[in-house]
C-alpha cells in the first residue's frame, strides 16, 4: 500500500510542477504550487523526515505561497479571474532544459552511490535536529536569525511607497 501511495504522491508532484512551469494561466500556476509543496512534504514523510515535512507545509504553504499569491494580486489590474502570462523562447528553453534533465538522470542512474549499510530507521528526527541546531550548528542558527531579521527590515523598507 505504501508503494502505491508513494507513486501517487510522486506523480502529483511531477504533474503539478509541470502545471507550474507550463500553464498559461498564472493563477493556476500558483495554486498548483500548493499541490507541489504538499506532495514534496509527503515525499519527506517517506524519507522519515517528519519534522521537515511539517516545516515545509508551515513555511512554504502558510508563508511563501501566501506571499506569492499576494504578489500576483497586487501586481495585476484584476479584470477577470484569469491572468494570462506569456513566455519567451519556449522551444529553446525546452531543448536546453530537456538536455539538462537527460544528463542529470543519466548521471544519477549510472552512478553507484555509497549507500549506508545500517538499515535502522531513525524514529523521530525532532530531538536530533533540535540538539544539532543548538549544538554544532548554533552559529549558523544565530546567523540565520540575523539574516531573517535583515530580510524582514529590508522587505518592509523596500515595500514602502516612498523610499
Amino acid at each position, binding site marked *: 500500500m505504501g508503494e502505491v501511495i508513494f507513486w501517487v504522491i510522486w506523480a502529483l*508532484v511531477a504533474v503539478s510542477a509541470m502545471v507550474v512551469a507550463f500553464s498559461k494561466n498564472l493563477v493556476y500556476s500558483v495554486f498548483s504550487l500548493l499541490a507541489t509543496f504538499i506532495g514534496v512534504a509527503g515525499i519527506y514523510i517517506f524519507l522519515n523526515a517528519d519534522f521537515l515535512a511539517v516545516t515545509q507545509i508551515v513555511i512554504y504553504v502558510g508563508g511563501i505561497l501566501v506571499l*506569492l499569491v499576494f504578489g500576483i494580486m497586487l501586481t495585476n489590474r484584476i479584470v477577470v479571474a484569469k491572468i494570462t502570462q506569456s513566455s*519567451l523562447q519556449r522551444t529553446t528553453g525546452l531543448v536546453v532544459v530537456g538536455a539538462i*534533465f537527460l544528463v542529470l538522470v543519466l548521471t544519477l542512474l549510472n552512478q553507484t552511490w555509497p549507500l*549506508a549499510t545500517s538499515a535502522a530507521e531513525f524514529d523521530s528526527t525532532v530531538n536530533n535536529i533540535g540538539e*544539532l541546531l543548538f549544538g554544532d550548528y548554533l552559529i549558523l542558527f544565530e546567523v540565520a536569525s540575523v539574516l531573517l531579521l535583515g530580510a524582514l527590515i529590508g522587505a518592509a523598507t523596500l*515595500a514602502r511607497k516612498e523610499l
Partner: protein
Amino acid sequence: MHALSSYLILSALLFSLGLYTVITRKNAVAILMGIELILNAANVNFIAFSKFVTHHVEGHLMAVFIIMLAAAEAAVALAIILNLYNDHGNINVDEANALKR
C-alpha cells in the same frame, strides 16, 4: 522500499521544471515560483541522501536552513517586485531594463 534513484529522478525533474520556469517566464512572480521549485529539488536531494547515504540528520539541517533562506528570499523579492510594479506598471522582467523611470 523505493530506491534512492526514484527520489533523485523526482528531484531532477523538479529542478528542470524550475529552471525552465526561470528562463522562459516573463512575469517576475512566476520566476520566483521557479526558484521555489529549484530549492525544493535541492531539499529532496539533501533529505534523500541523508537517509540513504550518510544516515544522519545533518542533511535535514541543511534543508531547514534552505527553507529559512527561501522564506527570507521570497519576502525581499516580493518587495522588489512591488517596487518594479510601482515604477513600470508591470512586472515583466524583459521590460525592466532601467533602474528607475
